[in-house]
């Protein structure tokens, strides 16, 4: 054992730790995809696409899980928004177009 590895705990900052963290996220995703009904991955993608119209989020910001609570099936939806950039973000072209449409509708009294 070298003197440096003695002081360094195996758990922080090592590539093995990074590998484990990545796998934890990925495996959880893939398990919920295959345990749930077939449409869950597509539902997840659709929700993600909608959110992306308004907020600049990453591909892994939405998770959809089907769980059970007592006698009910519960669809659990988790959306992680970027921490403080939400407000600063430039609206997407799509969001701007929709906003313009909305305003036009108000003005024309529809």
């Amino acid at each position, binding site marked *: *054992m*070298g003197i440096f*590895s003695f002081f*360094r705990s*195996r758990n922080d*900052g*090592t*590539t*093995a*730790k990074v*590998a*484990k963290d*990545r*796998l*934890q996220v*990925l*495996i959880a995703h*893939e*398990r919920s995809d*295959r345990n749930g009904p077939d449409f869950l991955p597509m539902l997840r993608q659709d929700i993600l696409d909608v959110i992306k119209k308004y907020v600049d989020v990453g591909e892994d910001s939405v998770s959809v899980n089907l769980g059970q609570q007592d006698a009910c099936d519960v669809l659990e939806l988790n959306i992680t928004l970027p921490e403080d950039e939400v407000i600063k973000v430039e609206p997407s072209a799509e969001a701007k177009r929709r906003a313009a449409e909305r305003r036009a509708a108000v003005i024309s009294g529809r």
Partner: protein
Amino acid sequence: MTKTIVVTSGKGGVGKTTTSASIATGLARRGFKTVVIDFDVGLRNLDLIMGCERRVVYDLVNLVNQESSLHQTLIKDKRLDNLYILPASQTRDKDALTIEGIARVMHKLKKAEFDYIICDSPAGIEKGAKMALYFADEAVVTTNPEVSSVRDSDRILGILQSESKRSKMNEDPVKEHLLITRYNPSRVKDGQMLSVDDIVDLLAIPLLGIIPESPSVLESSNAGKPVILDEESAAGQAYSDAIDRLLGEAKPHRFMEVQKKGILSRLFG
């Protein structure tokens, strides 16, 4: 009662064939009548690892197609009396196998009173791998301490839980075992490689054994002699421990620590 065990992994080249050969040999050595089947149709290799490549006449596809009898097709191991090898075809493709055809072969092996049927799965999660695991009572999920191998192992676990015969027939689930192969304790210690704890944590199935990365595996395959017969080698001993655990014995895990070297390297290493 015949027990069918599949050695599977998803990812290729992780040590399935090495493991199948050693598990079959280990079980036969402990007195069980055992057959090891190569399901890697088109890429036959188990015969080489078992050292019986020159005695292959008929193969699994012939047997499935009823072109040969069980007696003609099984190759008797040259070292152990109660060990048989059922080779894969080298010329046909994976589509040559059908569940019905394999069911007939399994039935014949049961009638021949085999204690264990070991199925060496091809890589992948396609038809060939599904065929190899379909009849399994137990599964040895062979995993290297490496991201893509762990991910693929998890996917194969999903398939075991949804596409095996046991799951389709609503029977007790396939019993899952984790076998970590090509483990390198010194790289784990340096934080470069996923540890046993990490992998058990991620896959959440019981640990059957840890096979260290060992040069004797290559030497054994050169000689056509399953590494479990090399009792001097760490890998051979680790496989032997795994057999004991498979048979229900509680044995502490070895080969997780960096092997002690000579006194000099202990002082200066």
